[in-house]
């Protein structure tokens, strides 16, 4: 991808995900930023590299019984149950506002069957305000006995193909960390046509209330996120960046610009800020500011210089 020197902003924070060029590498992680509007009072949404909205399914989902969240050591568990308004209402009610933001909108999609993924993609193709699709493959494939798409290379590839065939925009596949070798899945979806991979989704965890002798979550298990998982996320980003040639988007416990820059050193072209949005609604904007200051202080021609620049003698 060519970055034109003459029209280069200063500092040059541009990065590319397939055919999509972002003003900077910072996105908001799906499910941690609502539909963005919730944050309009609290930060300047226009400063984001991209906005990824809450995962969208074919039909609306009510989500799980409460309690849905519980705090853990330097992290949290969630079992929201993928609650969302469904693709139709999403386009009607949310895309209008999002489309006017002048920030690339990436829609995170989830399904329980290949066909569901296909239909969502077709419905989204109608709305040209969408910059890219991120596929959440951490969901159970009900037609395959509920095994998560993301844990099997063949299923992961199949979903990727199903969406890619019907999508006019770049397709990002979001990988599950709950696998033996994440590079196998990453290569499978790359071969299936993924324009980029994003990782990590949450680690599966559990918390128990000793007094009540019950699980803290009604769903028993949930997804672990936050600073606690950052070391696992960094390791997987490092491994995947060496295994595939498509851009890698780093996710996991990113709270500050330093965290984001570490993921980029490990090989990430861009990053997503998740749980940190709950603690500090301005977190994603502050990460943009911090990266910008770093690029200036280090006198880098562009932020792209540090992608994969980790020195491992």
């Amino acid at each position, binding site marked *: 991808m060519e970055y034109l020197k003459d029209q280069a902003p200063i500092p040059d924070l541009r990065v590319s995900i397939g055919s999509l060029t972002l003003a900077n590498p910072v996105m908001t992680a799906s499910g941690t930023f609502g539909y963005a509007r919730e944050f309009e009072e609290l930060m300047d949404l226009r400063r984001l590299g991209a906005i990824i909205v809450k995962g969208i399914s074919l039909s609306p989902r009510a989500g799980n019984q409460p309690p849905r969240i519980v705090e853990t050591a330097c992290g*949290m568990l969630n079992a929201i149950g993928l609650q969302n308004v469904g693709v139709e209402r999403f386009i009607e009610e949310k895309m209008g506002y999002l489309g006017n933001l002048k920030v690339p909108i990436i829609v995170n999609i989830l399904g329980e069957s290949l066909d569901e993924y296909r239909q969502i993609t077709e419905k989204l193709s109608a709305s040209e305000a969408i910059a890219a699709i991120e596929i959440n493959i951490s969901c159970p494939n009900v037609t395959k006995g509920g095994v998560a798409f993301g844990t099997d290379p063949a299923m992961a590839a199949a979903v990727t193909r199903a969406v890619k065939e019907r999508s006019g925009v770049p397709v990002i596949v979001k990988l599950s960390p709950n696998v033996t070798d994440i590079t196998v899945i990453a290569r499978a979806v790359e071969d299936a046509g993924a324009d980029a991979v994003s990782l990590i989704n949450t680690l599966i965890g559990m918390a128990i209330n000793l007094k009540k002798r019950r699980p803290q979550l009604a769903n028993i298990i949930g997804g672990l996120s936050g600073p606690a998982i950052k070391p696992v996320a960094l390791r997987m980003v490092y491994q995947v960046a060496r295994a595939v040639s498509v851009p890698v988007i780093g996710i996991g416990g990113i709270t500050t610009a330093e965290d984001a820059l570490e993921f980029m050193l490990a090989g990430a072209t861009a990053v997503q800020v998740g749980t940190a*949005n709950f*603690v500090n609604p301005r977190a994603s904007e502050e990460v943009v500011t911090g990266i910008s200051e770093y690029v200036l202080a280090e006198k880098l021609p562009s932020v792209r210089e540090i992608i994969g620049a980790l020195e491992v003698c």
Partner: protein
Amino acid sequence: MPQYQEKATVVRVERFSAENIRLTFDCPDIALAAQPGQFVMIRTGTGKDPLLRRPFSIHQTTSDSLIQVYFKVVGRGTEILAQLKKDQQISIFGPLGNGFRIAETTPACLVGGGLGIAPMLFLAKRISQLKKDCANDLIILGGRVRTEVEPLMADFAQFGFRVAAATDDGSFGRHGFVTEVFSSHDLPERCTVYCCGPEPMMAAMSVLCRKRHFPCQVSVESVMACGMGACLGCSRPTRDGSYAHVCLDGPVFDAEEMIWNI
């Protein structure tokens, strides 16, 4: 509705007991925008553990720039808050949620149990500002023991409401539950009830109100990560079979919508 993330300065610490503490913070933007029944998300520290903010009702605003929270030490976060000293700074986010819908024309009955007393002071103050006379209005405060109720009586007394108290152990006010106090008082017709407290108490109050055809507003809790609609973690099942989100749709609801955790 405007929301602010402020570096708030502790201007006053009041320890009613080892467990019950009232903090006064200087956070002008939040204080100016705050409405009775709304809450704030307080970051207990600057580190990564405990990670999440903690939700607390706005106990009252004591000037254009000051807000108070009244809380009980129940775990790590509140333990840290309990150690705050004057002039220390802390991050507060708010005001959040939908507060009480005040019925200016009907008599009011405010019922606060335990820490549910917290939001009632702000509400009483606001009602007294809207009405010229609160002689027909009643405040009922309940707690397990004296220290949960007595220290707040004076603050509640200043608005011209009738104020009644009850404690589980009889150490202050009537021996028993707020529900008994409520039943024993002959309240005017078309009274609007505002209630906050433990779930069993709010459940009981909603039954009593239904019987007497009193509209009843309740302020409920749920675990919260963001406090502003981003995480969808604070859901509560409602009578219509769907979920309400306490931070956005609440924390104040019509009692009739609620399904109680008892």
